[in-house]
């Protein structure tokens, strides 16, 4: 580790890792680089709680988050050491850059992930800035990890520098049992000044024929992955489970081009590699893997050079914009000539990557404006609610479509708000919004307010269309994803503030008036369930079953009564014609009947 002003640099070496597998002479790629599920490993789950707990993502074909075995083992070993824990304490609150070359980069990435996990869980409100820069590192995790990182909005914290000729970053696209472990280990150890003196280590030089074979193998497999990616169907995926995440800087002697989404990264990893291969470049594998020092030194020079497009490109881009010219420059910098067969694909993906480039904070600002424009819809629904407060409550009015004109308006507002928030979540999933978006009070509160006001209407709609009979209960089967997320945000927010103000806040703000909105968004779904239960209890003849049903109803009755007594419900719940008020009446009748029945037994 080293310090520079406010920034701490922590560098990792892959040497220990290499040595650990260099000893057993026969190590196959399938063992060393096998993906290990984070959730399955106790230490792993402790180090990366969010990632281990992440639910299987539909987009990742239901996989769990898994990372490369070798890197995980080394990291966990390191993590257990007191030195590392001390280091973590020292760097708390400072800007940190984790870095490493080759296998060391993979460990650095795990360390950065660990640091991000623990600092986002701790109570400090603004996590300190973290950057992880890897040089020529092998892939670390599967598609699920890539998605999880996107969801946590950590993609921007990772930067992977890859040289055009380097095989290592592209190695894990191959099927794992085909990975020649000794080559990697050999290249790793070569960097170590004392490697020649080390006994029992395998040959250090890779023979030319083997080099060529390895290149072909890698090119073939990266190509497969790149092709498969264009097919949207996740079922058709085969081969290696590993996928890139974070930003990729693709270096060539001409400069560097950057892409920031994983699809584009795969495509560019293939295109750059294939381009140099067709050019007939024959740099040795070792040289390609150890050239990063030179590349980094050259980078500032490249920036200073005044760039000119090749004559052909100039002609081609005459009619086009500066934007196209910029893409052409990026192509050149990544080492793909305009004559290469991969040029068109590379061009497309560079464009795709640049287009998605509106910064998250800019998106967020735009979203605030849109929130402002959509808020009147919410106000309108509040008016709608108020107009039924004295009568049957807005839940029942909406369910029965009372006053069709009012219903119509309210329904449109409900749908518009739903679309708005779904749009927000889509942006969030695509990491187009700032990483701490779901912790910003403004958004958490707006989402909560929306949820408390509108979810009852969604529940009403669900029951009006009898979906609870065809699909199952609302809470388990009918809830929109947005509501579950907003619940989570709200709970997390409570957890944050809970540490500072403590439990006193609960007692201090005991309500003197009924809440503006019922604080349990699913309250009405529970009322509906209670109605169903009551009806089935009324028809029940079996004593044991009846007792069970009554028990469940009693539980609900107690829950609802407490909610009402603590004034956590809005006035509409207690409206004279509301289904809750009517249920209470029904429940009393049922109890009387039950008492009469039991009395008659004795």
């Amino acid at each position, binding site marked *: 580790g080293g310090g520079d002003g406010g920034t701490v640099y922590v560098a990792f070496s892959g040497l220990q890792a290499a040595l650990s597998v260099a000893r057993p002479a026969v190590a196959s790629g399938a063992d060393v680089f096998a993906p290990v599920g984070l959730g399955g490993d106790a230490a792993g789950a402790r180090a990366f709680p969010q990632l281990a707990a992440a639910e299987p993502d539909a987009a990742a074909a239901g996989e769990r988050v898994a990372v490369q075995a070798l890197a995980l083992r080394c990291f966990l070993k390191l993590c257990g050491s007191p030195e590392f824990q001390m280091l973590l304490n020292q760097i708390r609150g400072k800007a940190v850059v984790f870095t490493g070359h080759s296998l060391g980069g993979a460990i650095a990435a795990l360390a950065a992930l660990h640091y991000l996990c623990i600092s986002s869980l701790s109570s400090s409100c603004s996590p300190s800035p973290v950057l992880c820069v890897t040089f020529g590192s092998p892939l670390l995790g599967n598609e699920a990890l890539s998605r999880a990182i996107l969801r946590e909005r950590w993609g921007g914290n990772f930067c992977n520098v890859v040289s055009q000729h380097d095989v290592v970053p592209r190695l894990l696209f191959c099927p794992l049992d085909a990975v020649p472990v000794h080559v990697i280990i050999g290249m790793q150890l070569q960097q170590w000044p004392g490697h020649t003196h080390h006994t029992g280590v395998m040959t250090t030089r890779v023979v030319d024929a083997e080099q060529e074979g390895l290149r072909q193998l890698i090119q073939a497999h990266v190509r497969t992955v790149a092709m498969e990616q264009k097919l949207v169907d996740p079922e058709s995926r085969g081969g290696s489970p590993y996928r890139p995440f974070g930003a990729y800087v693709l270096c060539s002697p001409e400069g560097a081009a950057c892409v920031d989404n994983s699809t584009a990264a795969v495509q560019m990893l293939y295109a750059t590699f294939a381009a140099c291969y067709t050019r007939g470049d024959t740099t040795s594998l070792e040289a390609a893997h150890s050239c990063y020092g030179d590349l980094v030194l050259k980078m500032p020079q490249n920036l200073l050079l005044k760039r000119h497009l090749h004559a052909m490109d100039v002609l081609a881009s005459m009619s086009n914009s500066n934007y196209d010219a910029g893409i052409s420059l990026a192509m050149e910098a990544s080492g793909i000539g305009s004559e290469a067969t991969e040029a068109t694909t590379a061009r497309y993906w560079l464009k795709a990557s640049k287009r998605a480039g509106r910064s998250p904070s800019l998106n967020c600002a735009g979203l605030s404006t849109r929130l402002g424009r959509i808020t*009147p819809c919410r106000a*309108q629904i509040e*008016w709608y609610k108020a107009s039924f407060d004295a009568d049957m409550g807005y839940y029942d009015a909406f369910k029965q479509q009372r*006053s069709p004109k*009012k219903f*119509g308006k309210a*329904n*449109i507002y409900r*749908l*518009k708000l739903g679309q708005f928030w779904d749009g927000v979540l889509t942006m969030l999933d695509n990491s187009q919004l700032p990483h701490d978006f779901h912790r910003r009070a403004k958004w958490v509160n707006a989402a909560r307010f929306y949820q408390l006001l509108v979810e009852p209407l969604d529940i009403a709609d669900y029951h009006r269309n009898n979906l609870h009979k065809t699909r199952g209960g609302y809470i388990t089967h009918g809830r929109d994803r947005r509501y579950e997320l907003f619940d989570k945000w709200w709970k997390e927010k409570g957890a944050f503030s809970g540490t500072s103000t403590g439990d006193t806040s609960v007692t201090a703000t005991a309500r003197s008036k009924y809440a503006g909105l019922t604080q349990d968004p699913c309250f009405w779904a529970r009322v509906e369930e209670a109605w169903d239960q009551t009806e089935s209890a009324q028809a029940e003849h079996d004593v044991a079953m009846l007792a069970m049903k009554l028990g469940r109803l009693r539980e609900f009755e107690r829950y609802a009564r407490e909610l009402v007594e603590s004034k956590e419900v809005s006035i509409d719940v207690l409206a004279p014609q509301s289904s809750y008020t009517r249920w209470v009446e029904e429940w009393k009748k049922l109890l009387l009947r039950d008492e009469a029945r039991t009395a008659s037994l004795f």
Partner: protein
Amino acid sequence: NTFVLNQGYFNNRVFFETVSQSANLETIKMKLWEQISSNIVLGAYNQIPEWQLKLGPRDRGPVLVILDDVWSLSQLEELVFKFPGCKTLVVSRLKFPTLVSRTYEMKLLGEEEALSVFCSAAFGQESVPQTADKKLVKQVAAECRGLPLALKVIGASLRDQPPMIWLSAKNRLSRGESISDSHETKLLERMAASVECLSGKVRECFLDLGCFPEDKKIPLDVLINIWMEIHDLDKPDAFAILMELSNKNLLTLVNDAQNKAGDLYSNYHDYSVTQHDVLRDLALHMSGRDSLNKRRRLVMPRREESLPRDWQRNKDLPFEAQIVSIHTGEMKESDWFQMSFPKAEVLILNFASSVYYLPSFIATMQNLKALVLINYGTTSATLDNLSAFTTLSDLRSLWLEKITLPPLPKSTIPLKNLRKISLVLCELNNSLRGSTMDLSMTFPRLSNLTIDHCVDLKELPPSVCEISSLESISLSNCHDLTELPYELGKLHCLSILRVYACPALWKLPPSVCSLKRLKYLDISQCINLTDLPEELGHLTNLEKIDMRECSRLRSLPRSSSSLKSLGHVVCDEETAMLWREAEQVIPDLRVQVAEECYNLDWLVD
């Protein structure tokens, strides 16, 4: 009239003049000019040099001229000075949109103000005197509904009257009758100016307004339609009359109708008008001068449980009314008696119940052109005695509101002349479910079909596509409507297609693109519509598209650039971007970004 003016700005140079109807304009002009210029003018007004009038008095600062009680545009044109720094404030019962740049509508009086105006007319003091029955006074004043004129006239007519007369006045007012001849004549005298100066047709149109129930919004569509039928007007003329009455404050347009209803393609059923009770009473009174059987409009002024007794008394003779308006609660077979309406062209049945027995005299109304059934109850009503419909061969338009439509049997007798059907807040499911009837046989000439707020409508019966005479289809606020009939493109006469505020609609049938005559397409607020049919560009006659709040619509069909007649697109900011390409190709295209507006009118039923 009381004004609070900032005297400081005009530095006491404020000149007040009451104009009134029969004013001598020459004198007023002269007087004002003398005051403004502080000069005595010798000779006639028109001898003043033009330049003096144009430049105004020198170095005197701003001037305010207040003209009270102005009655016509021509008067006003004469009296407005146009030199710089001169402002004119006009107080009038009419609006002068062409000359006056800003109009401030005076509200009707509030309860307290109304009472003090009333008291000063009735007792010569501003509050209720100790000796009077405070409650009764308040009730009578309340009947005037804040209209200053009525307060004054009625107050004055009750001056020094015994309590018995007050009580009868209250009762008569609440029944919509005039309290005494003097009240009637005075009110008429004062109002006459507004009404009598109307031209013949406009006056008749004003009187028609009395046929609608008090305190209810009158659907603009119904009103315009009735005017068109019985006064032989075409739509623009009817609309012009509407605007004239509105400018003279004889009716009020609600729901922003003023700005929007004038649009060429706007649908009128979204808008409505209201009329002040006193004006309605006036209309009723004026059209009730003839004897019952001779009246042109036979109207029940208030809702009653049964038909009026004097109708029954006169039922042996035919009624010559052109418009018949009946306002009741529930009606059973026994509540009706036979009447004969040989000349009736419009029948308005207002009621509030869940079952309604149709009067059998409908069958004898050979000239009936428009039938309006409006249910003001909370739930939709089922109709009984449907056989009354069978002989309505002349019926041209039908408006049903909050009615459960009966199933249409195969043998339904065709309504040969029916042009227009409007179903508002109706329940249609029973009627449409499993309906195999050929609608084109039942409604061979139907040209306008409007379905609004029918929440249970899931789809239109496919046989709608066989009614080849259809020119306009309007489906709105049907929240369960998911699709339009597949063969909609068969309607080769269709020029207007409105499908708005149907949030469940997710696509338009591709055959829409073969509607060669389509001029107007409204898909606003179809918030789940994801794309438009690919061949939209074939609609070469399409002039206007309204696509506000179609938030799911992220792209336009490539062919949309070939909509060569398209002149106007109304949409949101996001969707406006989609039209950018087409805008460059279609020469006259104007893309208008609509402002979202929110109001609380929808909360009032």
